[in-house]
């Protein structure tokens, strides 16, 4: 039987040393760790390194004109933050439909990335916003774009000993997120879409970033559709413009929540809704 042990890191230096050990497993909010163990994610056991005592990983602050969100910030804290509601509305949208109120009390933003599911609700808007991840290790700090973290369902590019310490997000006032689930609460998404736009005064899209969830092995940024939308007017019906392009870039699967066929139709619709909502926010 697999053997597990538990240790709470006293400071960041000790955490970095503990995470270097081959059998270390990061423990933070604790909303998925026990479930992963039940599913056999760590068959050889390991040592839980509890990082919740590290103040460096907490808090939402301004830093160089961006928002720095500590990895231990919970979904509840994001929802209660006036900074998130004002400057990152797409992330706020995602947090308000994230699991249920009880889970939001423990689930952390860092954990949502670390699990690396293609359906992670907080991840999709942050990719669209153009946010970055700060990764800490004994060797130092490195910064990557959010979308660079993922390489497969449940798989990421974190190196051994590396810890997600913060999300760094630029302001994205005209951004939005739309989710389709099988029910309104505790729903892993059938598909999600997020958009972040820049517009000129006549409503012409001058630049945009788009991301989709649950339609590919990883949370997906759809570059080709971004290029297609530049120069289009936000007040026109954009669904016919982006439909074929979206369909060509996604690789949805059949699973217990939906079919690939349905997701192919759903993703462009959700995306066009997110674009429209983001556009409305630009003029408000």
């Amino acid at each position, binding site marked *: 039987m697999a053997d597990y042990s538990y240790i709470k890191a006293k400071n960041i230096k000790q955490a970095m040393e503990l995470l270097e050990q081959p059998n270390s497993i990061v423990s933070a909010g*604790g909303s998925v760790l026990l479930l992963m163990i039940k599913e056999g994610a760590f068959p050889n056991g390991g040592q839980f390194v509890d990082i919740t005592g590290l103040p460096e990983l907490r808090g939402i602050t301004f830093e160089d004109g961006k928002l720095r969100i500590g990895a231990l910030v919970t979904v509840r804290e994001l929802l209660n933050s006036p900074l998130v509601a004002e400057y990152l509305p797409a992330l706020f949208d995602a947090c308000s439909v994230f699991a249920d109120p009880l889970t939001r*009390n*423990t689930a952390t933003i860092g954990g949502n990335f670390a699990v690396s599911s293609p359906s992670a609700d907080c991840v999709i808007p942050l990719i669209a916003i153009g946010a970055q991840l700060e990764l800490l290790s004994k060797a130092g700090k490195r910064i990557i774009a959010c979308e660079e973290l993922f390489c497969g369902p449940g798989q990421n590019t974190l190196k051994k000993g590396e810890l997600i310490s913060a999300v760094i997000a630029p302001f994205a006032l005209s951004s939005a997120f739309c989710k389709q689930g099988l029910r309104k609460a505790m729903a892993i998404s059938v598909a999600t879409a997020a958009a972040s736009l820049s517009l000129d005064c006549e409503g012409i899209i001058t630049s945009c970033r788009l991301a989709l969830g649950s339609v590919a092995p990883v949370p997906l940024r759809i570059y080709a559709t971004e290029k297609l939308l530049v120069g289009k007017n936000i007040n026109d019906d954009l669904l016919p413009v982006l439909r074929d392009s979206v369909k060509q870039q996604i690789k949805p699967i059949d699973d217990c929540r939906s079919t690939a066929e349905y997701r192919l139709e759903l993703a462009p619709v959700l995306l066009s809704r997110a674009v429209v909502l983001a556009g409305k926010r630009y003029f408000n």
Partner: protein
Amino acid sequence: MRGKTLVTFNLNGCEVSLPVKAEESLLNALRRHGCTDLKCGCEAGSCGSCALLLDGLAVKSCIIPAASVNGKQIWTAAALCEYDTLAKSLAESFIDCGAVQCGFCTPGMIIASYAYIKDGGKADRQAIRRALSGNLCRCTGYKKIVDAVEKVAGSFFC
């Protein structure tokens, strides 16, 4: 005690020390200790029947590692209803409104509705439904539960 961690926390107003396995859930550890008002439903964080207050926040104890609660304050529904006026009002309201059938979901429902009202939640049926959206009841169809919470939320000022 190889492979076990000793955790010390405040349970319903009393200091408690329990040896727990690293992979043991808080639900399991507390039920072993006698807190059978925490119900073991899905054990996957989906149904809310194991809800408790951890440092004042409603959480699902089946997915929280017991080892991680060192130094924290925990209240479970039964004790809370004994000592806290708001929780007591909720329990009475659940009875008055017929919001209890089999009763399995009730402790979790009390915890989630307690947290809702403590957070400043109002007697708004839609908002109450959202607040209880992580707690499943297979008997009542939720109407009477929402009635019970609405009645207390409308008359209680925190």
